[in-house]
């Protein structure tokens, strides 16, 4: 209950911020940060809870973006419909990929997910309708009241999406699904011997995770007014979605949120103050530091600090 009151207040605050006089650039940058919150939260459902490392984030993200573009091109569908289509596309891809690859374990699953990215990218490069390799310029529709600009509206929409994503992740974590996924992470064989329906749970996780990633990708073409395969299927999304939970902590739903805020904000700051190329380096350095020094992430550090100060 407290969670949902907090969520509601956050959504109202985001709405108020979006209609306030804050500098336009803030919304432009915040959109990217919030996208990473959704991606990291989605990634963590399969990667954190179940321990199945997924490098395929761009495939899900990109298929959501392209689903939105197709609907927009064909029917001029509004943003909400685009997001719904992106979610459906991501979930469907999650189901397909899950059925084919979730029997693989450990490193083999991870490799298979990388392949999915290249398959999706190749498909889009060769599909003329959505612009092929050169991409497609998109004409944004009129912005809806009360928002003054499109970036402000997208900021609000993404905030609501992030809250929904975190709510879903939180529900999964505390329910029997999460318990089963933790069992899979700890010892898949033991889970199976206990009658935990491991494949079914992993599929659920993969579908939900893929659906959320697809949703996160759907507004991207409208945000950029442009889409092309190389940047849409960029492996940077895979690294960011994976690094944020690692940095924040994978065990709790709060971990990816904290990690994504820290990481993506830092990247935005570095992009502006130092250079656009340096921001990828930030991810690498932070990831190495955390894996070596704080394998349980910021949440783990916080827990340790709580324990030592209560003594």
């Amino acid at each position: 209950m407290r969670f949902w009151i907090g969520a509601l207040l956050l959504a109202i605050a985001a709405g108020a911020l979006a209609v306030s006089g804050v500098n336009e650039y803030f919304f432009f940058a915040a959109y990217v940060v919030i996208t990473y919150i959704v991606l990291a939260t989605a990634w963590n459902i399969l990667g954190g809870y179940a321990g199945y490392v997924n490098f395929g984030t761009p495939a899900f993200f990109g298929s959501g973006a392209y689903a939105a573009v197709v609907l927009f091109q064909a029917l001029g569908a509004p943003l909400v419909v685009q997001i719904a289509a992106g979610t459906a596309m991501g979930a469907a891809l999650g189901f397909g990929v899950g059925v084919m690859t979730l029997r693989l374990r450990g490193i083999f699953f991870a490799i298979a997910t990388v392949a999915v990215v290249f398959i999706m990218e190749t498909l889009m490069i060769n599909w003329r309708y959505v612009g092929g390799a050169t991409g497609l310029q998109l004409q944004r529709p009129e912005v809806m009241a009360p928002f003054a600009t499109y970036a402000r509206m997208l900021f609000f929409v993404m905030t609501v999406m992030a809250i929904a994503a975190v709510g879903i992740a939180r529900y999964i974590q505390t329910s029997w699904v999460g318990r089963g996924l933790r069992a899979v992470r700890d010892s898949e064989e033991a889970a199976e011997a206990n009658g935990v329906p491991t494949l079914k749970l992993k599929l659920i996780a993969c579908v939900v995770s893929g659906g959320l990633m697809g949703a996160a990708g759907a507004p991207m073409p409208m945000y950029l007014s442009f889409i092309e395969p190389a940047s849409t299927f960029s492996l940077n999304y895979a690294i960011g979605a994976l690094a944020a939970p690692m940095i924040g902590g994978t065990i709790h739903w709060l971990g990816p949120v904290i990690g994504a805020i820290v990481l993506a904000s830092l990247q935005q700051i570095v992009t502006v103050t130092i250079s656009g190329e340096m921001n990828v380096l930030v991810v690498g350095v932070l990831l190495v530091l955390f894996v070596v020094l704080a394998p349980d992430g910021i949440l783990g550090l916080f827990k340790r600090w709580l324990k030592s100060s209560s003594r």
Partner: protein
Amino acid sequence: MALELKIEGIDAGYGAVRALHGISLSINEKETVALLGTNGNGKSTLMKCVMGMVRPTQGSITLSGVDLTKLSTEEIVNLGVAMVPEGRRLFPKLTVEENLLLGAFRPLARKEIKSNLDFSYEAFPVLKERRRQLAGSMSGGQQQMLAIARALMSAPKLLLVDEPSVGLAPILVSHTITKIKELKEKYGLTVLMAEQNFHQAIRIADRGYIIVHGEIRFQGDVKALEQNELVKSYYLGT
């Protein structure tokens, strides 16, 4: 209908390696049957076949008339079969309580999860004391208790116990066997236990099968087993 596990002429193996050759075995309700044999003779494979984790290439496994060879492990657990796997196979990084809750994953057991948990704590008070502790941080004996308690969380009728003595000190082996006996008497369980330790196994078994290189070489009640030449040469060193 009375519970009856019937295994008839099963062959099973891993890839090109055949571990079981035409094994037949039966267990009646409330019986305790020991599956005896040293390492690598197919005891665990047989148990995994019953649980649907290894598929026999031939023969049939039925539980009270229901064919188990077509069912998934979760469906078999749903029918009231639970296994305590060899080497315990706990979830070391989850707490004792989470381990127990995972034993009650089948929908039917999930409804009774509270009373089953109370029941497990009653049977193993030490687990209640340690319910917030990580399972991997307990001693071997306690871990074995947890593994048994976890299997009982699904309120099984048929309990498969795979080598409860592995990695335990002799005194703990004896405790574990005694505990299984207690539970079986109290709750009317039917037990199939694979064990290398002949003396411990026959303390609670009604009947036994000796399995050598994937074949049943002898079967009989405890008396017959004790006097059997094969047992003498294999276990008793005479």
